[in-house]
């Protein structure tokens, strides 16, 4: 069964083999196959990455010079807000769900996800939500402009664009929750015989923990935006000070969701890196058990640090100290993970193909973002840096160089398995080096801008900030254009189907089930008979 190889090549994973399923568009609309759904998740998230990227480049174009050139301030606020919402909920999160859909059944030896139809629904909610979100640009008053955190009272005062944004978030949240339920059930109930929890690949472990985080906090976000909605339209006063509410409470509820959310966006990245590095160091992952415990600790700690996003709202001193120390504590398990990756590489027979380049680049740049995070965790320092470009630099170091680089690493790592075709190594290396250089050109100057006091989310700035902003803008356009190269590399494998045919196990150090038990490309239906894991 698992040895069926797709040889008639119209479209990647397009396998009209032994079952009757619709072809053409209806195949994708009605599919319950985890590979199809994973592919759709990945393409969706790449589309959103490009849309969010265009918004970001418009921001950088406006900030190329002081003064107002291209957009007016109201539209600028919409750009920053929508860039954040689209990248977080449209690009990064669905990309990891796409990886989960493709890889979790393959890595645990399951035939498909536990709830295949719900899986289809989880995905198809996303384009609907994205359309709602983007259509908010065209309603009176424009798109949400209160920042991606949609803080009250601004979010209570805006036009109908905010309602569209809230509905979109509700739908995306429902999609995430269903996706997480699917992932948890698949992992807990459908592992191959013999695969105990502590034998699961790290990627599966990180997604199990991430899925629990999602189930715990997405409903809290749903609650917060429901309160915003009823404050706006049904006369409640959760956050409306005029009616006895408290806008600061929105920040508490939002960040109770928001801080676990940032780990939701990084833990699967840790998982991908933990697969890639052992494969290219040709050594098993160093400290597997400590990796599992570190990931769990990060997840648990993420629930008790949210107020470090709110050091300037007037918390009592005891609260400030608690949240400061709890936040710093997270550096310990994170340090364990970085240590383990380095120890895995130590004395390994390393080669540096593109996935490994992105993984090593990830460790380098993500760790820098981790250190700036540690600085921001220091409450008296944060009071100076709150809402400056230093914060912008910090979270782009962990979200772009962290999550996005891990997504790239994972794509290059698994695309031979997904398409059966090896990506273009030369272009892949170009993609890595251009991304790494332009990323740093874009975001490293933002540290200096922030330390010098340039506030975020403002379309104009004082003229002494000009040079660093121009460097950042040049880097941003370079980074954006580089991603078109990535699009070409992926299209070349998947649609154009040009390149070397990939062997079943193109990476000699890779030893999880998808490499050892399945051909490349992975057949449309795999693991109907589960493999035995020793």
């Amino acid at each position, binding site marked *: 069964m698992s040895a069926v190889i797709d040889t008639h090549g119209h479209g990647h994973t397009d396998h009209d083999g032994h079952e009757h399923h619709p072809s053409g568009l209806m195949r994708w609309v009605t599919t319950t196959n985890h590979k199809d759904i994973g592919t759709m998740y990945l393409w969706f998230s790449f589309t959103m990455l490009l849309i969010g990227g265009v918004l970001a480049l418009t921001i950088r174009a406006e900030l190329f010079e002081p003064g107002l050139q291209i957009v007016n301030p109201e539209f600028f606020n919409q750009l920053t807000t929508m860039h954040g919402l689209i990248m977080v909920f449209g690009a990064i999160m669905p990309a990891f769900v796409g990886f989960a859909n493709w890889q979790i059944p393959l890595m645990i030896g399951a035939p498909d996800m536990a709830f295949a139809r719900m899986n289809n629904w989880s995905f198809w909610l996303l384009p609907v939500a994205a359309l709602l979100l983007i259509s908010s640009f065209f309603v009176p008053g424009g798109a949400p402009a209160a920042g991606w955190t949609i803080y009250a009272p601004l979010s209570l005062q805006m036009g109908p664009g905010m309602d569209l944004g809230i509905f979109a978030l509700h739908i995306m949240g429902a999609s995430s929750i269903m996706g997480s339920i699917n992932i948890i059930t698949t992992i807990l109930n459908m592992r191959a015989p013999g695969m105990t929890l502590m034998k699961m690949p790290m990627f599966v472990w990180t997604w199990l923990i991430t899925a629990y985080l999602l189930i715990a906090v997405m409903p809290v976000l749903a609650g917060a935006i429901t309160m915003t909605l009823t404050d706006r339209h049904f006369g409640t006063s959760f956050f409306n000070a005029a009616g006895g509410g408290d806008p600061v*409470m929105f920040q508490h509820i939002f960040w109770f969701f928001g801080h676990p959310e940032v780990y939701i966006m990084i833990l699967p990245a840790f998982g991908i890196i933990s697969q890639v590095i052992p494969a290219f160091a040709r050594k098993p992952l160093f400290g597997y058990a400590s990796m599992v415990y570190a990931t769990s600790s990060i997840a648990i700690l993420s629930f008790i640090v949210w107020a470090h996003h709110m050091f300037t709202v007037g918390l009592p001193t005891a609260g400030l100290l608690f949240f400061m120390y709890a936040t710093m504590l997270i550096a310990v398990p994170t340090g364990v993970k970085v240590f383990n990756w380095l120890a895995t590489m130590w004395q390994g027979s390393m080669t540096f193909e593109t996935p490994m380049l992105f993984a090593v680049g990830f460790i380098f740049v993500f760790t820098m973002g981790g250190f700036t995070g540690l600085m921001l965790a220091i409450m008296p320092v944060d009071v100076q840096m709150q809402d400056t470009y230093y914060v912008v630099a910090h979270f782009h170091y962990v979200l772009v160089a962290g999550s996005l680089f891990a997504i790239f690493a994972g794509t290059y790592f698994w695309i031979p398995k997904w398409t059966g075709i090896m990506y273009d190594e030369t272009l892949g290396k170009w993609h890595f080096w251009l991304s790494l250089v332009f990323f740093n050109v874009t975001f490293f100057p933002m540290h200096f801008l922030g330390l010098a006091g340039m506030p975020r989310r403002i379309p104009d700035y004082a003229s002494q900030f000009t040079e660093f902003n121009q460097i950042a803008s040049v880097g941003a356009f370079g980074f954006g254009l580089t991603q078109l190269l990535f699009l070409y590399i992926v299209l070349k494998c998947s649609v154009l189907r040009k390149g070397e045919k990939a062997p079943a196990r193109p990476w000699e150090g890779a030893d999880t089930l998808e490499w050892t038990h399945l051909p490349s490309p992975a057949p449309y239906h795999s693991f109907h008979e589960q493999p035995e894991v020793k």
Partner: protein
Amino acid sequence: MNAPAAASASNRRMLKKLLVVALGMFGFGFAMVPFYNKLCEVAGLRELWQPGEANAAAVNTQVDLTRKVTIEFDSNVRMLPWTFKPMASSVEVHPGELTQMMYEVKNTLNEPVTGQAVPSYGPRQAALYFNKLQCFCFTQQTLAAGEVRQMPVVFVVDPALPKDIGTITLSYTFFRVDGADRKAAKG
């Protein structure tokens, strides 16, 4: 097909459990509202004063508590058929302290009369330091026939008052305002 059926049943059980968790967390979001309000109340976060001063009256830090000044009240009428007297003949105040004194005035005629009070101070240099925030002397007063009225004067003695002044006399004299009566009678 027994094994897949069992697997699917156990999947469905898991689905239900996880849905309950999700719904519970949705409720938790709303439970944070009363929890937050209670916490703010217990921690006193909504009190905008310094800790401990929340329930105390606002304290005027300008008050010179090291000394007291006696304020004597005097009242006169001039060519006016009114009786006019302060409710107390004197008070002791700290410079800087906000003080209010009431005067009572009565029109003894059977027709409306308008008067204007004019203050004077003894010693005369105390006038520089005697700040009236509200006074019946700021406007003309019209009393109907036989009317009795209590009128306030609110004042602060400037803490810069020279140390050698221990007593200030505030003296009012009510004068009749001619012409105003005729207007009032007509109006």
